[in-house]
């Protein structure tokens, strides 16, 4: 198959059955390929095997084993793609073709903007509906790869008069790309080991929950396409290192460019590849191939990555890109020394010189890498602001990974992949160095944060596939064939042991498949926009409160109304309700979020001041007390307090919201500050009268989420009024009343004092508010 390196396209491998080579599971050819850069699939006699054995012409492709093998691998790969695609459709079948969760709604909205207004409008898009009154330069603050991909697919389909709605393109993009990920994983694993392992890896990645969690239908997020780009970039990189061809390296750069455009996780690539090169240098595996590959990759990749507006000059400025630059310099120096080595005669001096330089460079690199990797895990996800700990910490997916979730997401693979790693290290070559580094760094990151489990998943699949493939090779080998070249090592393996081991492995794989399906079905296939509950008789109730409320906002409020809510719901409000929001899931401005948090945690009149200064028309909160929904705003409330306290320590103190015993309680024992803050009042307004049906024993105002009778049942609003509450009270929207002509005075007027005095007192107050807003706005503009 190495006959024409310029045609590395899959189809060729699949369809050129008659000419195709094969390093299949039963071939055991990997032992021959430990030489660096050598062919892994050691079949270098195209056609001969078929012609000699079968005595048939070229035309009868399927009568040759190679033809069958090509067809088989094609079918397996196709089925893997199909299985991957269809196992991601649980949510679509159970619910509908809908965008899930939070971030996807923003991506969908941007894609919609892209398709309706064109690419340049999208790049220049200033979204005045987000972060009121600041706005957001969307074109310059997103990774546009996702939107452009979906938009392009939509454009091409419409060009062919396939009238698919952009929403459906967005919903099904991630499952389609999971198919491509399977293919690129196959290619990468085949480069690393052999075709059999590649097929296994493709099957694993197609259904492994760790990846499905981010790529179910409707989860229209960067990760969905980024994992494909990641794997494909790595494949091309391995290919470039193996061949030392500029062609493959340019391919790698383009793929890297796509990855940069798609996900902030591209820094993983730009650190892993230099690390690979560095380790190759350390292992004395320097070769011209490495030099060509890395020099080309670094320069072209750097220039390409800087074309993404959001990335801009970061690759030459920020610390996480410095390792790549350092390795580039080191490689040049090393190559220069190599060159000198050929010319110079004074061997001793030269060696000393080399040692000195490489040590110095190595030290520099290690410091850089230390700096990078300590800061990397946060850099991977925050976008373009300073890192503020409460806001990062308040996101559940930024928590450290537990052992359970390793098993939950990877099942048996997490146990077998060290074996694969060991196999790789035992038969080390250039590209296996790469996969070993990939595995080690990914394990580290996945341990730091749940979310980065995603980068670990592909390498786990690949290495587990290597492990399984090796075991199968060993135990499922064709006896009749092996009889001839007698391998005495296998003498001890009787047919019984062979079949038992094989059965055991198959059982494991079967359990893996069952587990994957179960996890996908139960844990990762909920749109979270639509909730479902099941009755005793199995019938399903759909709780569609989110969309009910959002759609009410969309239809029955002023087009330019500004909605204040906690930042979790910002993207959904923008996407579904099409209204202006103050803060959203792009948590770039901590002080703005803190201000909203402060409004939520202050009492009504203080909150009204803030809301007036922010021009808030409606306040939207999530309240789960009626149906027992635990992800509501009261349960998130402490984070709001903490974030507000971070910016306004004088006004908000977290301790005020706890009882003297240090408990967070909503019942009568709760702290008075809590019981009178805006969030509490909005959540429980008129809830005190309500008898939640749960037996007659519960008192009115019984909060099912927190299992407590609320402490403040007499809630009255002065500046707010209830505008809408959804059917199950899940979403409550309040309208912020405009100022009355004149604020009623708290005390009686003294007749001797002329009225003007009071009005004149009020004017500076109002001005003060306006002024504060102005100062506040400016502070954002210039910060």
């Amino acid at each position, binding site marked *: 198959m*190495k*006959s*024409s*390196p*310029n*045609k590395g*396209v899959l*189809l*060729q491998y699949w*369809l*050129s059955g008659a000419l195709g080579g094969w390093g299949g599971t039963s071939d055991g050819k990997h032992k021959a390929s430990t030489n660096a850069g050598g062919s892994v699939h050691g079949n*270098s*006699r*195209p*056609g*001969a095997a078929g*012609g*000699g*054995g079968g*005595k048939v*012409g*070229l035309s009868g492709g399927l009568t040759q084993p190679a033809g069958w093998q090509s067809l088989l691998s094609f079918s397996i790969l196709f089925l893997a793609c199909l299985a991957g695609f269809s196992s991601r459709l649980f949510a679509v079948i159970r*619910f*509908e*073709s*809908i965008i899930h969760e939070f971030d996807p709604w923003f991506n969908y909205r941007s894609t919609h903007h892209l398709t309706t207004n064109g690419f340049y409008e999208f790049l220049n898009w200033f979204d005045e509906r987000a972060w009121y009154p600041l706005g957001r330069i969307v074109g310059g603050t997103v990774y546009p790869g996702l939107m452009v991909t979906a938009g392009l697919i939509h454009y091409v389909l419409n060009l062919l*008069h*396939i*009238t698919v709605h952009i929403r459906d393109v967005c919903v099904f993009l991630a499952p389609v790309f999971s198919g491509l990920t399977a293919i690129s994983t196959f290619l990468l694993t085949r480069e690393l080991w052999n075709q059999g392992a590649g097929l296994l890896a493709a099957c694993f990645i197609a259904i492994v929950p760790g990846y499905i969690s981010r790529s179910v239908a409707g989860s229209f997020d960067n990760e969905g396409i980024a994992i494909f780009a990641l794997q494909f970039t790595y494949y091309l990189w391995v290919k470039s290192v193996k061949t030392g061809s500029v062609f493959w390296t340019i391919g790698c750069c383009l793929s890297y460019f796509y990855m940069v455009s798609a996900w902030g996780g591209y820094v993983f690539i730009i650190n892993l590849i230099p690390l690979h090169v560095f380790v190759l240098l350390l292992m004395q595996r320097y070769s011209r191939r490495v030099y060509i590959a890395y020099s080309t990759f670094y320069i072209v990749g750097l220039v390409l990555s800087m074309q993404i507006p959001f990335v801009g000059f970061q690759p030459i400025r920020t610390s996480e890109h410095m390792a790549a630059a350092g390795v580039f310099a080191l490689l040049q120096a090393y190559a220069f020394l190599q060159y000198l080595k050929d010319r110079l005669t004074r061997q001793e001096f030269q060696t000393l010189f080399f040692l000195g330089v490489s040590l110095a460079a190595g030290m520099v690199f290690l410091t850089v890498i230390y700096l990078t990797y300590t800061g990397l895990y946060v850099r991977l996800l925050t976008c373009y602001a300073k890192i503020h700990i409460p806001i990062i910490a308040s996101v559940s997916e930024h928590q450290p990974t537990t052992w359970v979730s390793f098993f939950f997401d990877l099942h048996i693979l997490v146990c077998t992949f060290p074996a694969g790693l060991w196999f790789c290290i035992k038969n080390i070559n250039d590209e296996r160095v790469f996969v070993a580094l990939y595995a080690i760094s990914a394990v580290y990151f996945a341990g730091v944060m749940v979310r980065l489990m995603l980068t670990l998943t592909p390498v786990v699949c690949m290495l587990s596939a290597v492990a399984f493939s090796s075991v199968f090779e060993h135990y499922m080998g064709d006896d009749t064939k092996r009889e001839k070249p007698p391998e005495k090592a296998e003498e001890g393996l009787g047919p019984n042991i062979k079949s038992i081991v094989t059965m055991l492995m198959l059982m494991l794989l079967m359990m893996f498949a069952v587990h994957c399906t179960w996890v996908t079905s139960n844990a990762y296939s909920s749109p979270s*926009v*639509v909730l479902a509950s099941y009755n005793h008789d199995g019938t399903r109730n*759909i709780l*569609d409160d989110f*969309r*009910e*409320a*959002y*759609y*009410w906002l*969309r*239809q*029955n409020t002023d087009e330019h109304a500004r909605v204040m809510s906690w930042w979790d719901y910002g993207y959904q409000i923008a*996407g*579904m309700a099409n209204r202006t929001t103050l803060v959203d899931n792009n948590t770039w401005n901590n002080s703005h979020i803190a201000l909203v948090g402060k409004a939520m945690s202050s009492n009504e009149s203080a909150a009204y001041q803030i809301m007036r200064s922010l021009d808030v028309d409606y306040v939207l909160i999530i309240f789960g007390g009626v149906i027992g929904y635990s992800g509501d705003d009261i349960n998130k409330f402490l984070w709001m307090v903490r974030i507000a306290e971070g910016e306004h320590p004088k006004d908000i103190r977290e301790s005020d919201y706890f009882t003297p015993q240090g408990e967070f309680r909503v019942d009568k024992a709760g702290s008075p500050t809590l019981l009178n803050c805006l969030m509490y009042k909005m959540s429980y307004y*008129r*809830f005190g*009268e*309500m008898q939640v049906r749960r037996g007659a024993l519960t008192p009115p105002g019984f909060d099912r989420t927190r299992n407590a009778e609320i402490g403040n049942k007499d809630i009255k609003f002065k500046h707010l*009024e*209830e*505008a*809408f*509450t*959804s*059917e199950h*009270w899940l979403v409550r929207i309040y*309208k912020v009343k405009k100022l009355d002509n004149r604020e009623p005075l708290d005390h009686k007027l003294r007749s001797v004092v002329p009225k003007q005095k009071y009005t004149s007192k009020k004017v500076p107050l109002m001005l003060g508010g306006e002024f504060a807003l102005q100062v506040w706005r400016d502070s954002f503009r210039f910060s």
Partner: protein
Amino acid sequence: GLNPRVCLFLRLCHISQSPAFDAQLVSANGLVNEEVKRTVDLSTHLAKITAEIVLSNQGHSAVQSFILAVEEDLTPHLAYIGASVKGDEEEDGTLELQQTTIPGQSGHFYKVQLPSSLAAGAQLKAKVEMTFSHVLRPFPTHVTQAERQLVVFQGNHYLYSPYPTRSQTTRVRLASKTVESYTKLGNPSKNDEIIEYGPFRDVAPFSEDTMKIHYENNTPFLTISSITRTIEVSHWGNIAVEETIDLRHTGAVLKGPFSRYDYQRQSDSGISSVKSFKTILPASAQDVYYRDEIGNISTSHLQVLDDSVEVEVRPRFPLFGGWKTHYIIGYNLPSYEYLYTLGDQYALKMRLVDHVYDDQVIDFLTVKIILPEGARNIHVDTPYKIDRMPNQLHYTYLDTFGRPVLVATKNNLVEHHIQDVVVHYNFNKILMLQEPLLVVGAFYILFFTVIIYVRLDFAITKDPAAEVRMKVASITEQVLTLVNKRLGLYRHMDEVVNRYKQSRDTGALNSGRKTLEADHRALTNEISSLQARLKAEGSDLADKVSDVQKLDGQVKELVCRSCQEAERLVAGKVKKEAYIESEKTLTGKRQELVSRIDSLLDAL
């Protein structure tokens, strides 16, 4: 009334299309309204005014037509007007209406053509039906959630007519017993929801006297502010219908907060709000969907009845006064129920507008009918006048030059407008093949491209090693074929020898031997030339081929020897036993050699 009688409709809100001058008719023809029974139905959000008129001709000549009049104030709201004659045998003779004007008089006038002329002194019974939309004004215009909705109707106590009226009664049907106020002309009697005015005697032509009723009306004041109905016809057996609807509650606007608690606990809270309504779809409707911009509206229910499919359309949120919503409802119909064909001629008979909810009001309707690609000579028969827009083109799956789209719009529609439209067009049935052929063609091109790509080398650089390998492979392939052919020659020779042994025909043997020699030489030469080429390519396979050649030489020798042995046997020079013995050894040797050749070939 989902299946209203077929009446004739007139375009409203426009000055007449044929401004005939009919003043003469009024003054001269001597028509008199002998007895008028008016019913003003205000129980819904529409005002449905029906009048049963006994018309008598007191002039001197027979008349062909009479005139209906609508008051100036109400004309902008007139959605439907229809007249029928109550004959003795025929219940509903619907009549043709034509708009006209009367100089000096305000209002709209419609000339009703009688089926047969009304002779002097004769009488007839006519029934006039008018439906007005948006004439019930909420008053107060804003109510809170707890309050009830009050509306005001302003109309005429009398029948507005160009003819004098001898006797008239007006009966007003309200939505509820609660009435704030009503005009008391002629001391009307009120009984529950009904107010009866009259009888009024000898009312002059064009009499107007304002009737004003302020009463409670909590029926849903739903208005479809716009609806786009798209009908997509496919000749593959399906008609897809999709309606995009903007719905608004046009009753009294909700003032103050909306409290879900009150709404859930008290049954009369928000009594004028709309929680859900029923839409009736055709009985064969399938795959019904109900959604909006943000997805499925999960709160609906579908019920399949014998003669219809009922959808309980529940908007995402209850509609209070002033609130609006927007949704899309769509379904598929089998085309055999609606599409008629004769040769190349097709006729589509569908409802121009369909039921959305009872007593519906549509402010603005757009109908789009998408015909199959290639439909020609399109001709539309509408039941009433609608505004045709320029045709459009629509591109969808597998279209090349686009499907013709008929677009039409109309304002102010009510249930009476649910009627069939007929679209005639021609369609060449050959065009049905276009779509499958396109698919076949696309796949053909795809596979062909793959074949081309795989079979041809597009590399811009040469990889000598790979090329050599390919060349060697092809040469070995040829060698294999030739060697096999050569082995075949030997088998053929064996047959010849066997035959010779029986027939003892030396001639045949000799000729067989000769052909063997010739063929063998040719093949061996060919193989040697291939071997030379292999050598030239620098392949080590050349040695193996030469081994094969050597072995083959031995095989050949053996074959020749067995041939000679056979000759000697025939000639009686050897005993049969000895021959068999030697033949055995020869065959054994041969087999060994052949298997060695085979193993060499395998290694190639």
